[in-house]
């Protein structure tokens, strides 16, 4: 079975294509708690068990929370996160989320899926894409294709009514990344004209902006400085998230958190938030301008501006979009569901499922790809480290282009073809992808030429062929960088290690969630309240141990009622 997965910064979702008499449709699969969105959070309990999703998120601000969130931002880097006694890379944490989604599908359909289409931000670079692919493989899924999030959203949007569409713009502001794609639909063709983005901008940044703004007045006594820094940050960001959501409907909202029994609170107005987020709002314009320039499309001739991503719910983001385009955006698709649905549609297309026969998607390569060169400057010196593009950004893929380069040194015996991705004129500002050493016959400088051909397929895999016409020799390189090679070697070992982690049984998810909530409340309060929470929690744990369903249900209802009450009306 082939599933579509939106592996998001904040939330992830899984969908599958279901055939039916009238053609079929993409449907989201609920998780163990019944939700369609699973928070991209992983927590390691003191007993070594791992938790994924809402329950993990509950533990985020706890003393020994050992919870990781927003790790998508670290994809493609070597950074490890320490959870409890174990260290995890971003791709391993992503793999745990993917496993949890996979299990949801298994529980829902009774079949364990083996293949997946996973979405990535359009502006994810090659390293980040590779890391995502590896995460899928670590989770035991064959990644049939990585597709760009805005492209997936465009599919979901376009297939609502299957109408012809003049170019429209997908504005995808997620939890951690921002993408803009310009897409056209006609005759069953979904054609991406250009994509641009900022893979360091998302809803998380707006939370940070709020947290930074209120920190001083929220906590004049410096109470937050006395606890663990990680916990402080988690408390602030969670509170900021609540405030941000509240500000979507109101002109002012409370920013409140409880730390060790003390409740800290202040008020944030919409205009204050707006002022604080001004710099972030400004950053939205750049990718839009770039995508329009690259596709040579005038903003006025766009048929729609389609909103995707949870962060587009913010009124100030919508206001900025309205101003940017001089019109109201289209918010007819669910900003959190569209990407996963689009991935499932793509999955259906790959599996050639009925009802989808006549749809074809063509995408672009959003980055420039090229090699390192050197040249003689006007002063007679040699300038090294220059980037010579071979495939320009926003070229439709698959594509194959070549460039001719020649030797620079007398009797040069070898040419090192170093491959880079990026937009900077000097390679030092770009992402290194790999290198190929090509032996050449020693001749005077400039007399030996090589032909470098780049082939980029629709999954975003780059193949490099180098030919030396003088000798007729050919060299080939599938771009596998150092990290990839290393990773490929121990992929099996890592997969086993992840599989060996103890996961909480899926059927206990609801109880785990309740326990995590109770634990969080226990930490938040002091004195009598804490004693009551502790007492009810013990009763619940005892009920769980008894394995008597009726007793468990009663204790759970009792405990969750208490927690609901405490959260709604916190005792001051």
């Amino acid at each position, binding site marked *: 079975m082939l599933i579509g997965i939106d592996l998001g910064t904040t939330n992830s979702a899984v969908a599958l294509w279901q055939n039916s008499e009238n053609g079929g449709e993409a449907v989201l699969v609920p998780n163990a708690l019944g939700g369609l969105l699973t928070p991209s959070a992983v927590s390691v309990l003191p007993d070594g068990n791992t938790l994924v999703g809402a329950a993990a998120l509950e533990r985020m601000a706890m003393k020994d929370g050992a919870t990781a969130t927003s790790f998508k931002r670290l994809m493609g880097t070597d950074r490890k996160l320490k959870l409890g006694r174990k260290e995890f890379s971003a791709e391993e944490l992503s793999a745990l989320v993917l496993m949890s989604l996979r299990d949801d599908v298994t529980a829902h359909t009774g079949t364990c899926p083996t293949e997946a289409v996973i979405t990535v931000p359009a502006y994810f670079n090659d390293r980040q894409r590779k890391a995502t692919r590896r995460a899928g493989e670590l989770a035991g899924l064959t990644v049939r294709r990585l597709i760009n999030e805005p492209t997936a959203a465009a599919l979901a949007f376009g297939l609502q009514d299957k109408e012809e569409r003049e170019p429209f713009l997908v504005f995808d502001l997620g939890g951690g990344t921002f993408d803009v794609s310009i897409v056209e639909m*006609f*005759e*069953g*063709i979904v054609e991406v004209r250009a994509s641009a983005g900022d893979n360091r901008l998302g809803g998380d940044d707006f939370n940070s902006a709020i947290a930074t703004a209120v920190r001083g007045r929220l906590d004049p006594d410096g109470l937050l400085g006395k606890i663990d820094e990680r916990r402080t940050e988690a408390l602030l960001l969670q509170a900021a998230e609540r405030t941000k959501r509240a500000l979507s409907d109101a002109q002012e909202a409370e920013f409140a958190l409880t730390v060790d029994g003390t409740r800290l609170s202040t008020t944030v107005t919409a205009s204050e938030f707006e002022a604080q987020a001004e710099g972030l709002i*400004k950053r939205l*314009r*750049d990718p*839009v*301008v770039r995508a*329009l*320039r690259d596709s*040579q*499309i*005038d*903003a*006025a*001739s766009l048929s729609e501006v389609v909103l995707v991503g949870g962060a587009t719910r913010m009124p100030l983001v919508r206001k900025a979009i309205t*101003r*940017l*385009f*001089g019109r109201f955006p289209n918010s007819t698709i669910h900003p959190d569901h569209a990407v996963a649905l689009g991935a499932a549609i793509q999955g259906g297309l790959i599996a050639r499922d009925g009802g989808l026969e*006549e749809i*074809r998607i*063509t995408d672009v390569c959003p980055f*420039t790809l090229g090699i390192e060169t050197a040249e003689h400057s006007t*002063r*007679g*010196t040699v300038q090294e480290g220059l*980037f010579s*593009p071979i495939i320009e950004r926003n070229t*439709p893929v*698959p*594509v*194959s282009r070549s460039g001719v380069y020649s030797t620079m040194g007398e009797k040069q015996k070898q040419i090192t073809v170093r491959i880079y991705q990026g*937009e*900077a*004129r*000097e390679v030092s*500002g770009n992402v290194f992808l790999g290198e190929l050493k090509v032996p050449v016959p020693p001749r005077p400088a400039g007399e030996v030429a090589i032909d470098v051909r780049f*082939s980029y*397929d*629709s999954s975003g895999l780059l193949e490099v062929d180098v030919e030396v016409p003088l000798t007729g020799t050919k060299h080939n390189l599938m771009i596998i960088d150092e990290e990839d090679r290393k990773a490929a070697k121990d992929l099996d070992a890592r997969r086993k290690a992840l599989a060996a982690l103890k996961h909480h049984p899926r059927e206990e998810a609801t109880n785990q969630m309740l326990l995590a909530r109770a634990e969080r409340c226990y930490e938040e309060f002091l004195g009598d309240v804490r004693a009551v929470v502790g007492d009810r929690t013990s009763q619940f744990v005892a009920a769980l141990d008894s394995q008597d369903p009726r007793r468990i249900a009663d204790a759970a209802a009792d405990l969750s009622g208490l927690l609901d009450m405490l959260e709604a009306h916190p005792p001051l």
Partner: protein
Amino acid sequence: MTPSQAWTVLKIAKTPDVAAIRRAYAERLKAMDIDRDVDGYARLREARDAALRWARMQAKPEAEEEFDPFAGITPLDEEGPGAEADAHPEAAPEPEASSWLYAAPAASGEADPSLTTRLSGAAPKLDVTTGFSAAQAPAQQAIAVARDPFTRPVLLGLEATSDAVMPAWAHEQALYRLLLTDLPEQDDGQDDLPPLQGWEEAMALGHLKAVLRHAETASVTAFDEIDNWLARILADAWPRSAPLLEPAAAVFGWESERGQVSERPAVAFLNARLRGLRFREKVQDPQHPLHKAWAELTKPAQQGSRKGWFVKRADVVQLLDGVRKNFPELEHHFDPWRVALWDKPEGDDVGTGWFSKGRLWLFGAIILIQILRFAFADRAPDTSAPPPPVTLSAAEIAQDGKIIGDAIAAIFGPEITLEGLKSLQPDLAALFSANRTIARSDGSDEAAYRAKVHDLVRERMYMTALVEKGPLLADVQRLRADLYRAARKAGAAQCMAFIRTRRLDRQVVVPDAVLSAERKLAVRMLDAHQLGPPQRIAPGNAKVPGELVEKVITLTGIPDERVRKAMNGKGSDADQCAVTIALIDATLGWKGKEREGILSVL
């Protein structure tokens, strides 16, 4: 791909029907596996694009022909694109054919017609809506500040109200005029635009602020247009636009474009200037590690100036190296003399660091050191031995008087007599008489006497010119080049002897034209009392820039290495003579800062 090939690839008959073309494209696309047939896919796309282009051309041929990159870009009203469309019934150009988004300007050069289009589009509206008057001369404008409803609020810094009074396009126009059209009078030959004067700068900043504020709240299209337009005019108006650069760059994020493959040329130009400006600002702070080096190199030098005492060589090297590499436009702030002082290799420094790089230029600068400032002193002959007391007959006295008179006439022309010389420059007259006495006593002939005094006068002219500098120095050096040339005709040795000892061999025939020019100059100097006893001058040196070295090579046809040697006083007489003449010629015909320095050491 030609349209005719396109129809074959698409497998349809030639049609202007866009929908039919797309349908054909979709059919072909669905029939192929693009991952397996990459080239086929590329061909299909090309065919589709060519066909669509052709179809659009059929649809509106005029629009395509008279395509104006800036049409419809004019006044960007506060109401946004909708209102704009109403105000301009002529539709915006077909977006897909549009290339204006890439129409980045050249960094300098003539104003592009597209620029005027943007402005002239706004022009007809001026009088109707606001009565904004035509451009005024700066002086009038300065007076008119109080009356002008637009400039006043800006000057007072009340931009908020100025918006209400003045629409965005009027600010754009005012800014354009200030930067590029209403220029104060400037000296001829000055290529750079003059800097904005105080009031001009205040107004320009006010207008810029309004334009930027408008851009920030405008739609992406308008923002992008303003971005391109402003980058272009700021680049065109550089360095006049310098004070406006920072605020504009901040709003449009020009610096984030720096070093990108797609960096627009105007933005690249401005980014380089921006970094230069910032560096200059920083290095002027006494706390800056290179401040002393900066101060040293920017301090005007005179002949004989020495390197500053407390300046570290490494700092100067670092500064020069950094400036040359990163901000070449800043080098004009440096005093070339000082740069030359520091540019000289010092012992171990040769062949290391920046200097070795400098040597890689085609023709590096050469330091010209005056080989021989003084061959002899024209002290009165009494310094050696007092002339023997000789009693002369009246006839002899008359004969001597005639010989002296003839010599004076030969050197200065017939209008100058011994009496005249005595009144204008008594010591020179005494020198003439004394030398005559010596000549008589040692039996030299008249020609030898005349040559001797001529040499003395030439020497005085030369030495005075070296001290006086200015146009006189150029005139004297021009004359000397002619004399060297004349001497060369007699032989390279004669030429070098004249250069070294200031003695012109008697076999040298100086052309009449040169002699008459010399006479005129001599009389002029005599009249200005400039032929007094020569002052002692310390030997100096000067840097001959590569540009001049190159000219000398061209003029003489002597190879690079030999020219270098000759300039350092080595090599054959012929080379040295030819190079000296060529260097004088080249320097006289050149306007660089080192001109005078070089002329003073030749």
